[in-house]
Every structure is written in C-alpha cells, then in structure tokens.
C-alpha cells in the first residue's frame, strides 16, 4: 500500500502579508511520508494561512511549496485531503452522493469513488445513513463525514486544520487511529491543534508557530530535550544550601525535601550526585523532561523576548 516514495512535503521560506500585517514570515517546514506532523500555535499565529498556501487556495508573497523536491503541481494539490477549520459540506445533499461527488472532484473515477465511500462509511459506522441529508446527522456524525470527505479519494497527503476541535474522547481516538493508519500507509499527515496533550501523544514531529514564524520544530523528544538539563534530587538529610557550592548549578524549585536544579551547559550531573550522596542517603535522582506545554510556553516567551529586544 506504500505509494509515496519521495521526500513528501517541503515548505520553503514562505511569506504572506495582508497589507501591513505579516501573517507568515519566512516559514519552512517538512512533512515526510509516513509522518504525522503537528502544527501548534495560538490563534492567529498563521497555521491556517500556511495550510492554505500549501493547498494553493492562497498565494504566498514569497517562498515555495515543494512536493518530492519539485514545485508542487496542481495534480498533486488536488489529491491532498483537506479538512478546513470551519467545517463545510452541502447540508441538503445526501451523505453518499456528496462524498462521491467530492471524491470525483479530487480525481477519482465514479466506481472507485463509490467503493471508497462505502468503505469509509462502513468504517465510521455510517453506512446506514448513506441516503440521508447531511443536515439530518448529529454533529459528531457530520464530523465523521467531513473526515471521510478528506479520505475517499485516496489522498497523497492529509492537511487537517484543527481536526480534533469539538470531538468527544471516543471520536478523538478514532480520528488519531485513522491518522496513524494513513501515516503508516506512507502518507504525510499535517495537522494543527491547540490541544498539546493530543499533539504530544499523536505526532511524530511538531512545529511551533508564533506570529507567523516557526520558532521550534523537531520530534517530541528533541523538543523536550532541547532545553538545559534539569534534575530532581531528593536527599532528605542534606542541609538547605547543599547545592550552593556547586559550580554552574542553580536551584529552581523546592518540594519538601526534593530540589529541582538546573545545570548550565558544561556542568557535570555526576558532580551533583556525588555532592548529594555526601550529605547522606539519596532517594531520588532523576532527569526532568519538560512537557510539550512547557516547551511551548518557553518557546513563546523566548520568542517574545527576542521580538521585544
């Protein structure tokens, strides 16, 4: 089933201005085949604008969008499964007819479209509603139809804007399962979200966007391991100031007898351990890995400081 053998999507230094406002500035990112790429950032950061430029519904003022190393062609673009943030379907059109129509617009033949529609509606437990008007479906089922609309033409890539917004936990699980299946099949998946816990759970790689600029990108581990080393040390019999003599080590927080220390670059964690053991028993000695939320906040504040200065 692996069909995409190339390098996938590459966005290279795109810029988009709306008058004086720079919506996207020099933004670059890559989504490889088989990878789920999460795009996080606050509202108005430029996620939707970037996605629209990838899809070609919006023209950029600079930079380029590449597919397998070459400028993306209309033939590739029309086979991107897209789920806009503002969901949209014809409310009075029947579910099956509508999906077949959209699949055909994306280039599928009538027979292939019908087969794919059956397959996905069965998968989403909506087979019985194939002849119903979309507006007669519940909100959750409309969301499923919306996702099916992005899948029924066998997409070469998925671009999903806030696909998890407004979903119940069960639907969230179903959605992430589908995204992983697609990625496993070799399709690059790009999606945006506010829900960092979800992004952390689902994504292979993450890009953090702020004010139109990508401030951090990498695998979750890379991002989380990116900052200075922090250690939790629990030495119950140690005096209050046992860390003060250590070079390049700062105390960040105290929690009972536990201390969180941060090591400057070059400081030796083994020296910290030895100093701790010297005070008596050591119950805990553990590297602290920040959550994605912390990484996100830190990236935001760093960038804000950089922008201010």
């Amino acid at each position: 089933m692996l069909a995409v053998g190339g390098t996938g999507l590459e966005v290279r230094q795109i810029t988009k201005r709306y008058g004086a406002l720079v919506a996207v500035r020099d933004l670059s990112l890559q989504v490889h085949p088989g990878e789920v790429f999460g795009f996080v950032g606050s509202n108005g950061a430029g996620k939707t604008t970037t996605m629209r430029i990838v899809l070609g519904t919006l023209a950029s003022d600079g930079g380029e969008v590449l597919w397998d190393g070459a400028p993306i062609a209309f033939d590739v673009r029309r086979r991107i499964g897209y789920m806009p943030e503002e969901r949209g379907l014809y409310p009075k059109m029947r579910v099956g007819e509508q999906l077949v129509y959209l699949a055909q617009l994306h280039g599928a033949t009538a027979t292939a479209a019908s087969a794919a529609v059956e397959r996905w509606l069965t998968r989403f437990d909506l087979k019985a509603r194939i002849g119903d008007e979309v507006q007669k479906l519940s909100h959750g089922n409309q969301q499923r139809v919306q996702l099916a609309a992005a899948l029924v033409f066998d997409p070469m890539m998925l671009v999903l804007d806030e696909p998890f917004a407004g979903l119940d936990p069960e639907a969230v699980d179903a959605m992430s399962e589908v995204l992983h299946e697609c990625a496993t099949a070799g399709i690059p998946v790009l999606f945006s979200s506010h829900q960092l816990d979800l992004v952390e759970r689902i994504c292979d790689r993450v890009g953090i966007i702020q004010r139109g600029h990508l401030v951090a990108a990498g695998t979750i581990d890379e991002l989380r391991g990116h900052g200075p080393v922090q250690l939790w040390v629990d030495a119950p019999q140690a005096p209050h100031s046992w860390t003060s003599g250590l070079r390049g080590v700062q105390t960040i927080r105290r929690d009972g007898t536990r201390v969180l220390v941060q090591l400057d670059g070059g400081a030796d964690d083994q020296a910290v351990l030895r100093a701790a053991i010297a005070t008596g028993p050591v119950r805990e000695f553990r590297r602290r890995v920040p959550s994605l939320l912390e990484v996100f906040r830190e990236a935001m504040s760093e960038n804000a400081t950089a922008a201010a200065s």
Partner: protein
Amino acid sequence: MRPPRRPDLAALGGEALHTTYLIARREFMTRVRSRFFVIGTAVFMILLAGYIVLQALVIGRAVTTVKVGFTGDAQVLAQPLVNAMGQDKMFKLVTSTVPDVTSGRGQVQAGTLDALVSGSATAPDVIVKDDVDPTVAATLDGLVKEVALSRALAASGADAAAIENQVAAATIHLNLLDPNAAQRTQRQVVGIFVAALLYVALVIYGQFVAAGVVEEKANRIIEILLSTVRPRQLLLGKVIGIGLMGLLQMVLLGTVGLIAVTRTQVISVPSVGFDAVASGLLWFVLGFVFYALIYAAGGSLVSRQEDLAAVTTPITFLIVGTYLAFFWVVANPDNPVSVLLSVLPPFAPILMPARVATGDAQSWQVVVAVVLTLGGIAAMNTLAARIYTNSVLRVGSRVKFVQAWRGVD
C-alpha cells in the same frame, strides 16, 4: 488498494473539462430534483395554459358558433350562406332544416338555434331572440339580394349564369402600403410578453446563481472545493448547471405556451409565436450567461444570504430598467437610440428578442447584437472570474469592489 485514476483524461484540458462537467451536473441535478423546480414548473405550466385559454374564451372569443335553422322556400339560402361564411375563420356556422316556423320559433326561444330563416328566398323572415350577429345578418342580406338579382335576370331572359360569373370576376385590387400594420398590435403584445418573460427569467435564474455562490461561502464548503477545483471551473460549472435548469424550465413553459396559443388561435399568425419562442430561447441563453456571471461576481462579495440583496439589487434594477425601456423602444422602433440599445450587451438580451417578436429588428441588427453580446460575455467572464477568485474565500464583512478587483486588502 489504490483506486484507479483517470489516466485518459489526466493530460490536456480533459480533466478540467471533466471537473466542470461534474460541477454543472451537480448544480443541475440538485435543482431539477428540488421542490421548487418540480412543483414550480408544473404550477407555471398550468397557469400559463390556463391564462391563454382564458384569454381565448373570455376576452378573445376566438371562434363564434352561430346556429341557423332554415324552413320553407328560404332553405335555398342555407348552402350559399355556408359557402360565404366558410371564408371567415372566426365563425363556425351550423345550419339545419326545421319542419315549420312554429317549431323553429320554439328552438330559437329555447336557445338551440340562434336564428330561424323562413319565408321566401328573396324576402325571408329572420327570427332571433334579441340580437343577431351583424356579420351573419349582413351576409344573409347580401345573399338575399343576389338571389333576387339572379331571379330577376332569369325572368328578363338574360343569361343569368354568364352575368353571375362576370359579377364574381369583378373584384378590388388590394395594394398593401404597410402589410405589417394589421399584425402590428398583435406582434407588439407578443414582444412585450417575450420581454417580460426574459426579464423575469434572467432575474430569477441570475439570483439562483448568486445564491448558489453565497451558499458555498456560507456553509464553508468553498474551501474544500477550491482545494481541488480552480475558481473558474467552479464558476463556469455553476453557471452552466443553473443555466440548463433554467433552459429546461423555459423550454417546458415555451412548449406549453406555443401549444396553447396555436390550439386556441389567440395568435392568428403562428409564425410570430414560433419566431418569438425560438429567438427568445437563443437570447435567454446569451442573456443568462452574461448576467449570471455578473450575479456570481456579486454573490462572491458577501458571505451570508442576508447580505445578498445589497449586491444583487443593482443588477436586478438594470434588467428591470431594460424591460421598462422596451415600452419606449416599441413605440419608437426606428429611432437610432432604439436600435443602439437593442444591440448593446446589457440591453440586447431583452430588447433584441422583443424587437424580433414585434418584427422591428432587421437581420443585420440581430447579427450585430449576437456578436456584441458574445464579446460582452467574454469580457464579463474575465471580469467576473477575477472578482470571484479574489473574493470567494474571504469570509466576514462584504468585500469591497476595489479590493475584489485588485485582490488586496
């Protein structure tokens, strides 16, 4: 398990054409299956046929049936009367023989006969209830005089047959200075009818296009569509699909109208009706494409159905104004302004077919109007596609025309 693609169409413009076809088909099918179309068309057809029949029965009195009974010597007048009245299509003469005056008088009284002719052939008694049709009376009077004359000639010994032939050969020679004048009023009525029908059709179907554009913006499916379809294809498919729906409705109504008109003989010259319908349909197509593009561009400027009126009203005004201008044009058919207006694109789709129906349009004017309107459509296609492309993805407040034209904020 990848479904097969369409390799045959992938090259050239085939794919784009196929996409436009898919869009047009959806627009056509969803609308033709709608309640508006099915019930609306049926109601319109019934109303139109009913109106024409009513016109024929009540107002027009297309065919008058006159029943005349004959008795006694006067019976010789029956056949000549049938021959004489047979020329007139507005009359249907039914003659019968009545045994005697008393029973005939009873039939006139009862209404089964309109008139009873009895007595001698040269001075018959004509019994009617209250009034007799003047044409019948005059014809009968002429026949009686003819009978009297031929009897007098026969009595004088002359060759009655030869003289009658001579008399029959004597006739006036008609020289028509303005052969259309007789039909003119009728043609003017047809022209106004054509103009009214076209203006209503252009406004209704044009607003369908505008509403269709806004619908896709309002329910946000436009973003999905434009990720796979070029704006021009979407615009064109929509115009074609809705246009075909309108054309189907017009053809159905036109057919019913033509059948009703010819059956009831409301129009005595069927060719007027046929020309009017044929050119009306041609101009509906041209006018619809021209105005639908403008309506689509207008619709793309707003995001909600509630805001639609603000952009479509000026367009509708232009069409209604053109219709109203026809009343001046029809009164001044040879005025250069009339000719000029009827060939210019925004006015031609209503004025030209109406002038064809009235018989005022010369063929060179029709050709010029078609060429100019086709040019207008080409220009409008570029203009509307540009505005549509620039504004269709913008949601929120109304997009200003200048922004839509320049494509910037």
